[in-house]
C-alpha cells in the first residue's frame, strides 16, 4: 500500500464556501451509465481489474472461523483458474484487495490468509461500527486491539452527530486520534453518507476526514438504508480532487454497500476514471466494499470465456 496521507492542519475556509447543487449532481450521476460502456475483451479486462479492487466483506452476527476461512480462500482465488488461463491472465496474481471483517474475527482471517500463503491485508471495521455511538475511549481502544490482532487497515465510522450539528473541529480531532491509534495501519473513514442530510455535508465531512489524515474515504457502512450511490460518490470524488489539488496528497475512495452486479462495478470504474483519472485505478486508491459482487463478476468472465451462462454450481462459493 502507498504511503500514508499525513493530513493537514484544520482549515475551515476549505469547506466554508463550498456549494453543491443537488439536482445538477443527480443529472451528472444519471449520465455515468450512459456515457461510457466497455465491450468484449475490454469488458473482461475491466472486470478482472474490478476484482482486484474488492474488499471482500463479511459483516454478520453469525460469522465464525469456518466462513471466514472460506472467504479468505475465495479472496486468494477469486476467479476459477482455468478461466484465467483462457484469458492468459493466470500469472497476474489476481486476488481481491483485502478481506474485511469485524474486529473479533481479525485473528481468524489473519490465520486463514497465512495458511493460504498470501499477503492480502485484513481490514477491520471499528469505532462502534456501524452507528459510532459509543464513547471515544472505547472506540480508540477498539482500533488498537484490531491493529494488535494483525489488521492492516481499519475502517472507522465517523460520529454523524458531529456533522449534523456542525462540530467540524471536534470531528477533525476525533479522526486525528483514530489516525494516531491506527499506527502503521491504513485509516479508511466511513462517512455514512446516507445519514448526513445533504450533499453539502458529504463534501464537508469528506474534506475534514482527509485533512485529519484518512487514507481512504468510504461512502457507507452497508448498514444504512441508503448506501453507495453515484450522486454521493461524485461529491466525494470532487472533494478528493480538490484535496489533491490543494495538498498534492492522493486519498483513496471506497464505495460500499449495494454494489452487486458486474455491470455496476464497470460503471464505478469508469466513474473513477472520468472524475479522477487512471492514476486512481489501483487498489492503493480505489476499493469496492462488496460480498456478492465477486460471484457475479466470475459469472460474467465465465460467459466471456465459454460463451455460455454458468449454472450456480459451476462456480465455487465464497
Amino acid at each position, binding site marked *: 500500500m502507498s504511503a500514508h496521507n499525513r493530513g493537514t492542519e484544520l482549515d475551515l475556509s476549505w469547506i466554508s464556501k463550498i*456549494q*453543491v*447543487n*443537488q*439536482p*445538477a*449532481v*443527480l*443529472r*451528472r450521476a444519471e449520465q455515468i451509465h*450512459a*456515457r*461510457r*460502456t*466497455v*465491450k*468484449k*475483451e*475490454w469488458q*473482461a*479486462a*475491466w472486470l*478482472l*481489474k474490478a476484482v482486484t479492487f474488492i474488499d471482500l466483506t463479511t459483516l454478520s452476527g453469525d460469522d465464525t472461523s469456518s466462513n471466514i476461512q472460506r472467504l479468505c480462500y475465495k479472496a486468494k482465488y477469486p476467479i476459477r483458474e*482455468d*478461466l484465467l*488461463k*483462457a*484469458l*492468459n*491472465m493466470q500469472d*497476474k496474481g489476481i486476488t481481491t484487495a483485502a478481506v474485511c471483517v469485524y474486529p473479533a474475527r481479525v485473528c481468524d482471517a489473519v490465520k486463514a490468509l497465512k495458511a493460504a500463503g498470501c499477503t492480502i491485508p485484513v481490514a477491520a471495521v471499528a469505532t462502534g461500527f456501524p452507528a459510532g455511538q459509543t464513547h471515544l475511549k472505547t472506540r480508540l481502544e477498539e482500533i488498537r486491539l484490531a491493529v494488535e490482532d494483525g489488521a492492516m487497515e481499519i475502517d472507522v465510522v465517523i460520529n454523524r452527530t458531529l456533522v449534523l450539528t456542525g462540530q467540524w473541529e471536534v470531528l477533525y480531532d476525533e479522526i486525528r486520534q483514530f489516525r494516531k491509534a491506527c499506527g502503521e495501519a491504513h485509516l479508511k473513514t466511513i462517512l455514512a453518507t446516507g445519514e448526513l442530510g*445533504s*450533499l453539502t455535508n458529504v463534501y464537508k465531512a469528506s474534506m475534514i476526514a482527509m485533512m485529519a489524515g484518512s487514507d481512504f474515504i468510504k461512502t457507507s457502512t452497508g448498514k444504512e438504508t441508503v448506501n453507495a450511490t453515484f450522486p454521493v460518490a461524485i461529491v466525494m470524488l*470532487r472533494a478528493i*480532487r480538490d484535496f489533491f*489539488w490543494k495538498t498534492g496528497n492522493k486519498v483513496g475512495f471506497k464505495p460500499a454497500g449495494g454494489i452487486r452486479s458486474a455491470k455496476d462495478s464497470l460503471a464505478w*470504474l469508469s466513474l473513477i*476514471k*472520468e472524475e479522477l*483519472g*487512471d492514476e486512481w*485505478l489501483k487498489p492503493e486508491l480505489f476499493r469496492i466494499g462488496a460480498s456478492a459482487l465477486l460471484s457475479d463478476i466470475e459469472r460474467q468472465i465465465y460467459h466471456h*470465456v*465459454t460463451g455460455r451462462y454458468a449454472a450456480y454450481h459451476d462456480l465455487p462459493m465464497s
Partner: protein
Amino acid sequence: MATTRPESRVREIFSTMDYGPAPESHACALAWLDTQDRLLGHYVNGKWLKPKDRTSVPCQDPVTGENLASCLQAQAKDVAAAAEAARTALESWRALPGASRAQHLIRLAKMIQKHQRLLWTLESLVTGRAVREVRDRDVPLAQQLLQYHATQAYTQEEALSGWEPMGVIGLIVPPTFSLLEMMWRICPALAVGCTVVVLVPPASPAPLLLAQLAGELGRFPGILNVVSGPPSMGRVLASQPGVQKVAFCGDIQEGQALRWTLAGLGPELGLALGAESVMLLMEVADVDSAVEGVVDAAWSDRSPGGLRLLVQESVWDDTMRRLRARMGRLRVGRGLDGAVDMGTRGAAARDLAQHYVLKAQSQGAQVFQAGDVPSVSPFFPPTLVCDLPPASPCAQTEVPWPLVVASPFRTAKEALAMANGTPRGGSASVWSERLGQALELGHRLRMGTVWINAHGLRDPAVPTGGCKWSGSSWHGGLDGMYEYLQPSGTPARMPYFCENLNYDTFGLAVPSNVPAGPETGPSSAAPYGLFVGGRFQAPGTRSSRPIQDSHGNLHGYVAEGGAKDIRGAVEAAHQAAPGWVDQSPGARAALLWALAAALERRESALTSKLERHGVEFKAAKVEVELSMRRLRAWGSRAQAQGPCPQAAELRGPVLRLREPLGVLAIVCPDEWPLLAFVSLLAPALAYGNTVVLVPSGACPILALDVCQDMITLLPAGLVNVVTGDRDHLTRCLALHQDVQALWYFGSAQGSQFVERASTGNLKPVWVSRGCPRAWDQEAEGAGPDLELRAARTKALWLPMGD
C-alpha cells in the same frame, strides 16, 4: 474445457485500462436502406415518390465517407405534389374530432417505439451524432412529444375553442438540425389539425423514415409528407396554394434570406434561428456542476451550437482549471460508438469551427483544445477560447459548435449587460446558489429560455423560443400549438405579392404640403405637434399636412413627421421602457382605466369629431364607448396569469412568463380612427410594451385628442404618436433596428415592404396585407391573437432539490 486464446488482448487492457471500441450495430439501418434499393426519393401521400430524371445526391457516412444511398433532389413538381397531398388530406384531418387525432398520434408514438433501434441507428449513422444522445434523449423525447400533443388534441375542442387550424404547414429543416427539431414542429401542427409538408435537405433519410412510419399507419396518409431538396425549393413550397404558414429553424443568415424572399407571398413565417447559448457562472455557484453544464451545452451532441460562457472574475481561475481538466477526459469518435461524448457533424461544421478558431487566434484569443480525439478528419476537438477581446469581430459573431468562448465579468449587472448585448436571444443558463440573484438574472435576461443551475433541459410541455435574431416562433407547450392555430373565421391567406414594389423608393420621399384653403366648420381645437416624450413637439420637417373632413373641407393641420421624429420617438420609448416593465400588471391596468375615464370625459368632443369624418352619430357613440371598454378589458386581462407548464422530467416548477416585446411600433389603419387606435394601443400597453404609433392617416386628430390626456396620466415616453405620411413613417419604423416589433395595418404594398424590411433585426411583424379588420367585433377587435402578439413567452426553469 476453456482453452487459452493466445490472441487475447485482455492482458494489455488490464494494465492500460483504456476504453475500447463499443460499436452499436447499424445493420438494421443498412437493411432499411436496402429495402429502398439504396435510392431514397420523397415520401408523399403515404407512398414513396421516386420520379425519373432527377439529379441525386449521395448520402454518406460522415466518418468513413462510404456511400450509403443516393437521394433524389426535388423539383418544383415534386413539391407541388406534396402540397397537393397535404391539401387533400387537410379536409378530412381537420374535420376529425380531437380525440381521433389524438389516437392517431398515439399510434405513431407506438410505431416509433417499435422501430426505435432503426430510427436511432439511422439518425446517428447519417448525422454522426453520438448514438447515446439520439437513443437516450431524442427518440424518447420524440415519443413524449407525440404523447403530449395527443393529450392536447384530445381536449382541443374544449381548451382551444375559438381557434381553428391554419391549414397546410410548410416546414423547412436545415442539415445541421436533427430529426427531433422536426418532431417539435410537426407534432403540434398535426395535433391541432394541420397537415404538413417538410422540406428536408438532401441526404437526410431519418425524416423520410419517420414519414414512412406515419404513412404505414394506414389512415390519413397525406398528413405528413417529406420531400428532400435544395434550399431554393423553400420559396416554391411557400408559393404553393393552400400553404398558410412556413416554419423554419436553422441558420440566422438563411432565416433572413427566407424572410426576404417570402415577403408578400402570403404564408406567415415562423423563424427559430441560431444555436448559440449563453451561460452565466456566478461566484456563488457549484462550479463543478456548472462545468458539467458546459459539457451538456457544448460537448455532448445535444445542442447544435456553441456556448458563450460568462464567468465571474473571482472564480475565473478555478473555473478554467476545472474546465480544462474536464475537457481532457472527453472522448470524440464515431457517433455509433457507445462510449463517446461527441461525434462529428461532418466536414462543413468542422471547417466552420476551424475558421472561427483561426480567426479568434489572429485577434488575440487563447485557444485550448483537449480530449481523446481521432486524428483523422472530420472530427473536431472540444475547444475553449479565452481572452477574446470583446470588441473583436469574432466576439460579435455566433459561436459555432463545438466551441466555448469564455469571458470574465465583475458584477451581476455587468454579466447581464454582456449576455443581453448580443443580437441573439435564444437560451441561457444561470448558475448561482443564491435564489434571489438567480431569479433576478433569470428575469432580466432577454432570452426565450432560462435554466437555473441546469442547461439544455427540454420538455414537450414547456415552450421554447427566442427573441431578437433568434426568431419569434415557439415550439412546445401551448405556445407551440398557437403557432399553428388562428382565430376561427380568419380568411385564408392569399398571396398579395406586388411585383413592381420598389424597396429602395417605397415611402422614401415625403410629399410637400402647401396651405389647403380656409379652415371651415367648428373649430377643430386639435393640439398641434407630434406627441413624443410626453409632450407635443414641432416636427423636424417644420411642415404640416392638411386633414380633410368627409365633405372635403379642411379640418385642420397635423404635423408632418419624418425620420428624425421617429428616431426621437423610439428613443423616448426606450427611456420609458424600464420603468413601465417594472410596473405590476395591476398598476398598468389602473392607468388604462384612468385613460378610459378620460375618454369618457371627452366623449361628446370625440363623437362630434367622428361625425365630422362621416360617421353617423349613433355609430360614433358606439365607437367611443367601445374604445373605453377596450382599455378597461385589456387592463383586466393582462392581470390574469396563463397556465404554468408541468415538465415531466423535472422536479420543480417551470415558470411561463409573458414579457413585453420592448418598443412596439404600430401603424394604425385608416378606418376606425379612434377604435382601432385604442384597440391596438391597449393590449400593447397592458403587456408592458412602450409604443411608437402612427395614427389613422385620414383622421389622426382623434388620436391626438387622446394624447392630451396622456400628458398628465401616463409616464412620459410611454406612448408616442407621430403623424405624417404613412408610407414614409412606416419605412422609418420598419428599417429601425431598435424597434422590437411592428404591427402594420394598411396597404398590401406596405405590408410587403414591412415584411421584407424586418429582415434587418428580424423583428416580429404583423401585417394586414391590405385586408380590413372589423375592429368593432370582439373576435377581431379584441381577439386572443392580440394578446399572443403583444407579449413574448419566456420559460424559466427552476429545478429543485437539496
